[in-house]
């Protein structure tokens, strides 16, 4: 596949082919996203990237890192009331969630990991979780405009009056947990933590609480990712890349 006479990145082609996407704008946006992530050294740190393009559950389900239609490739399975559109995937805040099939315990290093969620919704009402899992005190989640928790109950604040934006929680090592809105650090903790994460699949638009989806989100997602821990510089670059991607698609906030 080509765009403007230039061959597309093979990982972009694989994703677009799997999702059946031929739209020129989306093709350009995905190709640029992949090449930029590789340029900044972020691609190899990702285990799952959900760009939510194409406007349907069938196109939104694919993991950009491994766009196979299998649980092992962390393809999403949507349940409950979702509204899919060109702006992303909108959960209803009542019973909607997506299972990533990415087990937090077995697929992530407990001292190097991150979660991200791009929310197009501003509301901060309700007790909601955008991405994560938990068993009792062992919590791993991002709540847009509220907090990021990774491995215990120590809170990294993401407090904000507006939930719109790109929310990232990253654990660079056992003594460094940081929360970001867009490219801005909101809070950090340096308390050592080496807790093994729950052996549960990470859910999007809810938290997998011991196998039960809870705290359903009402925030429209235009991007989400799960992967290794990323540094402050990485997050700044990541926001630049993701925001450019959203701007190309005309859905940035």
């Amino acid at each position, binding site marked *: 596949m080509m765009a403007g006479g230039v061959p597309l990145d093979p990982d972009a082609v694989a994703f677009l082919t799997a999702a059946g996407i031929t739209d020129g704008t989306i093709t350009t946006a995905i190709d640029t996203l992949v090449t930029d992530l590789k340029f900044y050294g972020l691609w190899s740190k990702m285990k799952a990237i959900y760009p939510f393009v194409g406007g349907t559950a*069938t196109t939104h389900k694919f993991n950009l890192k491994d766009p196979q239609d299998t649980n092992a490739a962390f393809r999403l399975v949507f349940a*409950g*009331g*979702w*509204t899919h559109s060109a702006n992303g995937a909108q959960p209803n805040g*009542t019973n909607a969630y997506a299972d990533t099939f990415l087990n937090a315990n077995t697929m992530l290093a407990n001292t190097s990991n991150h979660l991200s969620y791009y929310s197009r919704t501003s509301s901060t009402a309700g*007790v909601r979780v955008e991405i994560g899992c938990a068993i009792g*005190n062992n919590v791993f989640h991002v709540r847009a405009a509220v907090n990021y928790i990774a491995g215990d109950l120590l809170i990294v604040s993401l407090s904000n009056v507006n939930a719109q934006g790109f929310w990232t929680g990253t654990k660079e090592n056992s003594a460094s947990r940081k929360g970001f809105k867009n490219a801005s650090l909101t809070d950090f903790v340096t308390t050592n933590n080496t807790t093994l994460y729950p052996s549960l699949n990470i859910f999007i638009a809810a938290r997998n609480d011991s196998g039960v989806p809870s705290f359903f989100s009402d925030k429209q997602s235009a991007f989400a990712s799960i992967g290794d821990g990323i540094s402050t510089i990485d997050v700044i670059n990541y926001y630049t890349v993701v925001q450019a991607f959203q701007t190309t698609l005309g859905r940035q906030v």
Partner: protein
Amino acid sequence: MITRSEIPQGQETQFVGLLTIEQKDKLAGQLYAPDSYFNPIQDGNEPPNWVISVEEIDQTVNEEFMWVKDLPLIPWISAKPINPFEDATN
């Protein structure tokens, strides 16, 4: 109870479709549209009702389950989260 056509525009998410136990069992794990599964949940009434969302009802194209479009609708009452660490995560 009201019908789908009686819900004012913009208030759809304030209502849910009421299910019997038998209907809940029929929908669990089934597709309502491509790559989209029903997720019957219990509401916050006492005793709790099994319900599905208006989005699931509206988007159902699976011929086997078109009967959901005739479900009675009731106001959505959220079940109180039972996670004991809800406060700690606020």
